[in-house]
C-alpha cells in the first residue's frame, strides 16, 4: 500500500525541477519543455487524488489539461518559429525587446 504522500512528494519534486529548468535555461524550446514537465507534475497530483478519493473528476481535469497543453504546444512552437525567423536565434536573451 503506497501512502498518498509519496505521490505528492514525487509530484512536488518534479514541479520544482521544472521551475528550476525554466529559470536556468535560456533556450526557448528547453524552457517550453520544462513548462510541459510542470504540467505533468500537476497531472500526477490530480490522478493520485482522483484515485485515492474514488472520484473521476480529477482524471477529467487531467484530460482537459492535456488538451490545453497540446494547444499550447502548437501556438508556442509557432511563436518560437516566428522568433527564430526574425532573430536567427532561440536564446531568450536575444528576444528581450519587442523591437527588432
Amino acid at each position, binding site marked *: *500500500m*503506497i*501512502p*498518498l504522500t*509519496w*505521490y*505528492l*512528494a*514525487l509530484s*512536488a*519534486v*518534479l514541479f*520544482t*525541477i*521544472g*521551475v*528550476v*529548468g525554466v*529559470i*536556468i535555461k*535560456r*533556450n526557448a*524550446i*528547453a524552457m517550453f*519543455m*520544462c513548462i*510541459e*514537465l510542470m504540467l*505533468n507534475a500537476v*497531472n*500526477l497530483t490530480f*490522478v*493520485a487524488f482522483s*484515485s*485515492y478519493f*474514488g472520484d*473521476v*473528476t480529477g*482524471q*477529467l481535469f*487531467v*484530460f*482537459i489539461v*492535456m*488538451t*490545453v497543453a*497540446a*494547444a*499550447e*504546444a*502548437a*501556438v508556442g*512552437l*509557432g511563436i*518560437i*518559429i516566428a522568433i527564430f*525567423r526574425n532573430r536567427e536565434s*532561440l*536564446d531568450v*536573451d536575444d528576444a528581450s525587446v519587442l523591437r527588432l
Partner: protein
Amino acid sequence: MELPSISQLLFVLFGAMALGCAVAMVAQRNPLYSAISLVGVFVSLACLYLTLQAPFIAAVQVIVYAGAIMVLVVFVIMLLNVEEEVRRPVRLHYLIPVGVLLAAILVGEAAFMLSLGSGGAARVTPMAPAASDIGLTASIGTGMFTKYLLPFEVTSVLILMALVGAISLARQGRTPLLAAPGNVSEEPAALTAGGELALKPGDTAATGRAFARQQLERGEAAAPSRAASEEDEG
C-alpha cells in the same frame, strides 16, 4: 523487516526513472537530448498512472504527450537546426543568490505541506485505489458528456483557436493581396525560350494573374496553340 510490496517497488522504480529523466532533461545542453529525456519522464509517469488504476489517462499520456506533442517539439528542433547552447557571460549576478533563495523557499513550502499531509492527506488513504472502474474509459466518458459537457465544448473551441493561431503565426511572408484588375503591382513573369512560364522564388499568385492578364492583352499568343495541341491529343 517488512518486505516492500510489489506496488511500492513499482512506484520506486518508475518514480526514480521520472526523476532521473527530469534531472537529465534540465542538465542537458542539447535540446534534442532534453526532448528524449522528457519522453522518458512521460512514459514513466504513464506507468505511474497505471499503478494508480487510471489506464485511460495512461494511454492518453503516451499518445498525446509522448506521441503528438513531443513529435512536434522534436520536429521544430530539427527544423530550426538548434545546436548546443553557447556559454555566455552571466549578466545580473545578484539574481543567482535570489534564485537559490526562492528555490529553497519553494522546496520548504512543499516539505511543509507534505509534513502537514502526514496528518491530513494520510487520513484519506484508506479509500485507496481499490479495484474500481473510475479510471476506465466508460466512466470518464460518462462524466465528460454529462456533468462536464460545457468544459468539453469550451476545450474544442480552444483547440480551434490554437489551430488558427498556429497557422497564422507560422506562415511565411505577408498575406497575398487579392488580385483585382488594376490591383497587381508585381512584375509579370517572363517567358522562357521554350514558352513556359519561368517562376522565380518570391512569385506570388498575384504575379501569375498579372502574367495571365498580360497574355490576354497580347492576343493570347500562347494559349491557342496549347489548346490546339490538347485537341490533337483528344
